């Protein structure tokens, strides 16, 4: 019911209320340069000082902030250490050894056979209790991990399993959200987005019953970050 009458009526009312002349159907839009420029060349507004640290301190801040929101973080020396760290974490937490991983070469292509874990790759289903996914970037400012959907990263892996283990490369930790947008534009081209781009700041939570915070509302109860030192 994409009703062009309603569209025109609403836009007409907006223009009228803003004191602009009615837009005739055959006239070109009168978009001011200010608007066109802003959309073409997005600029950062105000970046908090805490996000503007040297990279080593950004990583420390990222760990601190992520921990503050109830995520756990372990640092490993190289991607080869990821399977062992996942196995260690699951054993420590007494969690199942059956793991669903993202079909991303950087994750599913690791030497999982060194562990006793039962690994499969693909989307998450109702039975999956643990997932391992890559990340696009991470932001020190608030301890936020950024994940994007795509063929190598089904979106359900981030939300359905009770435990979400996410791999963050230290080189991809940035100070602020704006840095991530710049990187995304670089990799996707300006104005393009994946179907879903998700900021994850700690595990799922709710305070809806008597304002007491409980983790694991509908999404993961645990968010474990494996931080790979690749810098």
């Amino acid at each position: 019911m994409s009703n062009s009458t309603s569209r025109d009526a609403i836009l007409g009312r907006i223009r009228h209320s803003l004191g602009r002349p009615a837009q005739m159907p055959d006239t070109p839009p009168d978009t001011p340069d200010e608007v066109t420029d802003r959309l073409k060349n997005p600029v950062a507004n105000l970046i908090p000082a805490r996000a503007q640290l040297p990279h080593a301190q950004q990583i420390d801040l990222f760990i601190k902030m992520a921990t503050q929101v109830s995520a756990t973080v372990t640092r490993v020396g190289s991607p080869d250490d990821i399977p062992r760290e996942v196995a260690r974490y699951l054993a420590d937490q007494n969690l199942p050894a059956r793991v669903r991983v993202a079909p991303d070469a950087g994750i599913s292509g690791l030497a999982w056979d060194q562990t006793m874990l039962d690994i499969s790759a693909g989307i998450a289903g109702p039975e999956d209790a643990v997932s391992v996914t890559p990340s696009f970037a991470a932001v020190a400012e608030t301890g936020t991990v950024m994940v994007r959907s795509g063929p190598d990263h089904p979106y359900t892996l981030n939300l359905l399993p009770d435990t979400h283990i996410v791999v963050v490369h230290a080189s991809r930790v940035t100070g602020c959200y704006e840095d991530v947008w710049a990187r995304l534009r670089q990799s996707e081209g300006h104005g393009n987005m994946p179907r879903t781009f998700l900021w994850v700041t700690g595990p799922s939570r709710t305070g809806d019953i008597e304002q007491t915070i409980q983790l694991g509302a509908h999404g993961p109860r645990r968010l474990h970050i494996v931080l790979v030192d690749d810098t």
Partner: protein
Amino acid sequence: MHRALPVAIRKGNNAMHVSTSPKFRENAHDALLDQSLQRALGRLKTGFKDKRSAAIAALPEFEALRDKAVEIKNHTLENLDHYLTAFEANVKANGGHVHWCKDSEEACQTILKICRDKDAKSVLKGKSMISEEIGLNAFLEKQDLQVVETDLGEYIIQLRHEPPSHIIAPAIHVHKEQVADSFRATHKGRDPNRVLDEPRDLLDEAREVMREHFFAADIGITGANFLIAETGTSVIVTNEGNGDLTQTLSRVHIAVASLEKVVPTLEDASTILRVLARSATGQEMSSYTTFSTGPRRAEDLDGPQEYHVVLLDNGRSNMLGTDFQDMLRCIRCAACMNHCPVYGAVGGHAYGWVYPGPMGSVLTPSLIGINQSGHLPNASTFCGKCEEVCPMRIPLPKMMRHWREREFEKHLGASSVRYGLKGWAFMASRPRLYRAATGLAARLLRILGGGRGALRSLPFAGGWTQIRDLPVPEGKTFKQLWEEQQKNKSRQDGGPK
């Protein structure tokens, strides 16, 4: 496989778009006597308010970010037509659809048509105040669609057949024992002796029940905290992850948003996000901030096959260029109601429509008319706390005053107040008469007080003395005493030595 659904949601119970705002006084009376509600409201203090203060103290740039956020929204509103058409073009470029809807009816019909086209039986919902505004649940249920709210708070009030009492904590008025009662009554086929004492028990059960809904859903409806013109993206901000599952597991994702949600760029959204969660729950950032653009891509393994944005006007375009334009900056953080002493006294239901608290007292008259909601902008002491905490610096008290002016112009208020004001203005603009009258009144009250310092009751002052004693004047007025003093002074100065 289409599993039998464990929850039987009763149909046609949502009366939330029927306003009880004209009965605000009675609603407030009942709310003040409701011990259970009063206990729940007591939690606002230690919950949202203290956490907000701590989060703001941790970010020195908070005030400057507020200014930036205001600038962004003001600029967007001044160019709303341009940004909306840019947003629309980018949604389309990504394979999505935009539906412009003038009012609630059109929005509901549009959503129904999408459901019918997909032959849908069930609709999952992430939390959306716009869907409350348009009365979507009741409408869809009348059309024999099963509607399930997935946000825990929304789910609880759906089971209780109540509207939300708060815009970010819809079940803030409900106690855990009441939640347990609702769950036992609704979740059939479970052990009747199971333990549902603690919030954790209740959450675990809700999570299990909801999982089955998630895997059976046809249509997923969410709201939107932002629409991004640059990319054609809708953004939701959640903590539970329910909105994400709603929009990912369903075949069709419909984002319902009012048109002032648009911002120019990802950077602009990021700036406002820095003040949103801090003002709302006192978190530095909510658990999930989700940017959704178009349907799943050809190579994607999951995600919705269709993406629709229902863009609602419902009177907002008429607010532009008026005294109420600034209200369109609102980002629905709820800081105003969390800090409002009136909301804190009576809770959200007393306000009688979708949006409670100070933001509701300004917005509701714009949406349903001042003649239906005259109490709301009047039920404020103008203490200014709402404006102080509003991250978008919306001058809420000033706009409530503007509503009082409209009401006065339309002769909607009580005529006794009207004549009272006119009579008072008559006196107060005649200094000699005023002086005589106040001098007389002060003496009279003094005599009535009889040395007691205060009166327990007084004719025509019932509103005052119902609650508190009326302090009696000292005796003479300041002006009488001042005049006497000045006379004495000049007599002393000019008198014989």
